């Protein structure tokens, strides 16, 4: 029963991956649409970033002094200047742990 649901979910997920790659060719997308698609990373990833910071495991908003806000700010600043993925993730996690475990 659960396995059947997993298989359905898998097929659905595969279709989301495959549809646009396999069934759309370049001529079907106009220049205007292509220009808008340039923004896809900026338009999609904040929908993962913002809830990951501002909403806790119980689906409610965090407090203003939550260590995740500090960790995210440090990661943004370090990432912006270092242009380095590892430095961004590490600095964010370390500053988050610093507040949780030290203060």
């Amino acid at each position, binding site marked *: *029963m*659960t*396995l*059947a*649901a*997993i298989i359905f*979910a*898998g097929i*659905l*997920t*595969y279709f*989301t*991956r*495959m*549809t*646009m*790659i*396999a069934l759309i*060719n*370049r001529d079907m*997308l106009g220049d*205007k649409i*292509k*220009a*808008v*698609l340039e*923004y*896809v*990373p*900026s*338009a*999609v*990833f*904040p*929908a*993962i*970033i*913002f*809830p*990951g*910071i501002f*909403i806790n*495991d119980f*689906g409610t*908003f965090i407090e203003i002094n939550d260590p*995740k806000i500090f960790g*995210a700010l440090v*990661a*943004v600043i370090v*990432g*912006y200047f270092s242009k380095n*993925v*590892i430095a*961004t*993730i590490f600095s*964010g*996690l370390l500053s*988050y*742990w610093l507040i*949780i475990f030290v203060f």
Partner: protein
Amino acid sequence: MFTKKQLFTRGMLDISPHMLSVIPFGIICGAIGVELGFHPYLVYTMSFIIFGGASQIVFLQLLSGGASSLVAVASVGIINSRHLLYGAVLSEYLEKLSFLKKLLISYVVVDQGFAESNKFFKKNRNEEFLHYHLIGTGCTMWVCWQIATLSGIVLGSFVPEELGLKFAIPLTFIAIVVQDLKKLDHVIVMITCGLSSLLFFDAPFKSYVIISPIIALFVAALLLRLKK
């Protein structure tokens, strides 16, 4: 011109820093599944069949909370519908591939792989074997995800929850978009998406994951019109 092997390796290298957050997240995914009372085989099967981090957790949480499996399947579909946008962007670079190759390569399209390969594609439009970069990012992600979720299943509740390792996920995506903060139009699009995602967080089936990008893309279209 790069060779196929060089492109594949480059893809592996470009995505590997993200494993710093993907591996802990995979371990958590596996651990949560077992903790919620699902059979380890089922939890692992998901990593193979669905292969999509957050959607796997949501799926198991919904089922264990007593939701209908129809709701769980629909939620996975909606959370993962963002891949449609990735596909639309990537289709331009993959159009020369045969239909079969397109079908195969689609299985390994993931968030971080899309982001890194798309950055590489933009700078190297004229390479002949560009898709090997995407295969490199996708396969690296696939292998790490399988190993990580399996480890989580084995380790189970051994993974300390106080570490808050889930926080590594927003961080990995910050690393992806942070350089675009230099461009005002991108900043506006990002803020639109982020605020919409908080506003629509309680929308059914986790649909904020796709509602907010659509709103943000509309704003992007408006900005493009203003720029002219």
